[in-house]
């Protein structure tokens, strides 16, 4: 069993709307990330996956619960105490167009984290580190003095990756790092992330809504719905036999790029997604679940182990047989 790098215990995040109402973005998530692995967090928009990712690296304070990094609590620390951990916990953003300051040259963008954390003694050392990072992410050295607008989306994402790995972090949260990119470029970035992981022993939390990307890149997968974990386990096991009804629907809704498999596997999810302001009682998926019973409305299911995976469903012991 590999070492646990990061642990989240009962993490909750509520965003207040008014005095009485709030958005329940994340509702009591407990999970651990092992050193060197890639844990994918999947779910549809608004399920709380980005909020969770930000709380994991201490970029957003949780409403309740705590995050432990190598056994040390990083929740509720003062800025000065936290800065040592900040170097270890980094983030790659989704939109390579919005996440780079358009007025900064590439050399300054990549040098920024190194300067902030006073890593380099001399200017020459700083330039050398920047050049090394550019080489690592595949940006030609003669682009040192270019501005972000002179780069394509894929190259910008490489700059974002260089910034994230500049301080040799232990864990990087990748928040939809390839969803703004074209198919042919997307694979270049996924290959780069995997290479960097092997070379530098990085641990990734990979947030994505794209299940085919997740299947390729992750070791374990965590499926979220309305701020809660529905199912978590080894990626291959979850894809081979999804136990939670929501995971089954999610996997079924992937449109295969093959006209011979047209309309075959697609099962459609009925109804509309419930509101995170006023979540349903009991199981939050029950209003859309074809297998929901009275028990689902009255009691919230907790994550229970079923083989190699953990599932939050009252009916997981008899997995509902799919129609085909």
């Amino acid at each position, binding site marked *: 069993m590999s070492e646990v790098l990061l642990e989240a215990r009962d993490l909750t995040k509520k965003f207040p709307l008014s005095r009485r109402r709030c958005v329940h973005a994340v509702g009591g998530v407990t999970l651990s990330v092992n050193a060197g692995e890639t844990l994918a967090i999947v779910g549809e928009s608004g399920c709380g996956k980005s909020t969770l990712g930000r709380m994991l690296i201490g970029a957003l304070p949780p409403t309740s619960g705590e995050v432990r990094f190598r056994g040390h609590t990083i929740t509720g620390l003062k800025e000065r105490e936290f800065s040592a951990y900040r170097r270890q916990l980094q983030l790659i953003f989704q939109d390579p167009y919005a996440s780079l300051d358009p007025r900064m040259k590439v050399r300054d963008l990549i040098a920024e984290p190194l300067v902030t954390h006073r890593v380099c003694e001399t200017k020459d050392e700083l330039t050398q580190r920047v050049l090394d990072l550019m080489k690592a992410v595949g940006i030609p050295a003669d682009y040192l003095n270019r501005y972000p607008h002179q780069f394509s989306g894929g190259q910008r994402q490489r700059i974002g990756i260089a910034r994230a790995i500049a301080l040799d972090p232990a864990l990087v949260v990748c928040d939809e790092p390839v969803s703004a990119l074209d198919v042919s470029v997307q694979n270049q970035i996924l290959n780069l992330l995997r290479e960097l992981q092997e070379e530098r022993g990085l641990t990734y939390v990979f947030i994505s*809504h794209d299940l*085919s990307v997740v299947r390729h890149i992750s070791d374990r997968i965590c499926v979220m719905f309305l701020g809660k974990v529905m199912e978590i386990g080894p990626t291959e096991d979850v894809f081979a036999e999804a136990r939670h009804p929501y995971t089954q629907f999610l996997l079924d809704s992937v449109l295969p790029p093959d006209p011979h498999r047209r309309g075959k596997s697609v099962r459609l999810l009925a109804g509309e997604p419930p509101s995170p302001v006023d979540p349903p009682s009991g199981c939050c998926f029950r209003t859309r679940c074809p297998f929901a019973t009275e028990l689902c409305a009255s009691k919230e299911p907790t994550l229970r182990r079923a083989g190699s995976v953990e599932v939050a469903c009252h009916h997981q012991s008899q997995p509902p047989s799919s129609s085909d």
Partner: protein
Amino acid sequence: MTQSTLEVSHLYTSFFSERGEIKAVQDVSMRIGKGQVVGVVGESGCGKSMVARSIMGLIKKPGKIVSGSILLDGQELTSLGENELCKIRGKDVSMVFQEPMTSLNPTMRVGLQVQEVVSIHENVSKEEARQRTLAILSAVGIPEVKERYNAYPHELSGGLRQRVMIAMAMVMRPRLLIADEPTTALDATVEAQIIALLRQLADNGTSVLIISHNLGVIAQLADHVYVMYAGHVVESASVFELFDNPLHPYTLGLLRAVSSLRSQSKVLQTIPGIVPNLAHLPVGCSFAPRCDKCMARCTSTQPELVAVGSGHEVRCHLTKRVDAQ
């Protein structure tokens, strides 16, 4: 050969900027039969949305349709003035855009927005327009239509908003529906629902032009596919022929990139390099700088689109040579 609803021939659309002419669409020809779903696939900047905008007459200055013809059931659209186009848009040809939140009026109830289309194009009573609106809203799968009729866009989910957009596009029973990345902003479970809805519309006789970068969407929905790269159609074939027997190196690269994601291989297949800048297109084949089969001729002469079989056309020097043997 069945009668075609839309026939685009040798369309050239350009934008004239300070930095020179940007050739967004070059020599694009396509036809869509009645009730047929035609897909256009390509990466960002390949000109696929500009083909749609040219058909809709939505190319604004500094852009212009330079030459070519667009026939809708035999009627030439490129020579029509704005007033005449207004009568056709929304009635005979309509369009669904990618982002339903920015395409709907946030200050107007969604029912009225759909109803407005009816009142503009036809002289009918308010009550009849309302009845037709309610009918189309429920036809596109919106539950509790009477309540939703009075909702504002922000009160609806992304999937429902896109259904409202489709209802608005379909309320006049157009001959051609153009859907430009209709599911890109939506979640996977909702995407599958919208694709099923578009398929159903086509089965009922509407011709559909679906534009997408997602090969899954194209494979599930289109009957015939045009692959675009840097403003050109580089390959066109029936959906089965294209996925089973792709010939252009770009199509091959795209399909390999997607299928390697689904394989066990550790290293993913990619197409090296980046999409060229449309203002500085390379001489010869636009794909040559990224092509692993590039020959001397590719960097000097632009290849022609050649037929290689029934309904299968490819724009590649390599194909031509194989064909000539």
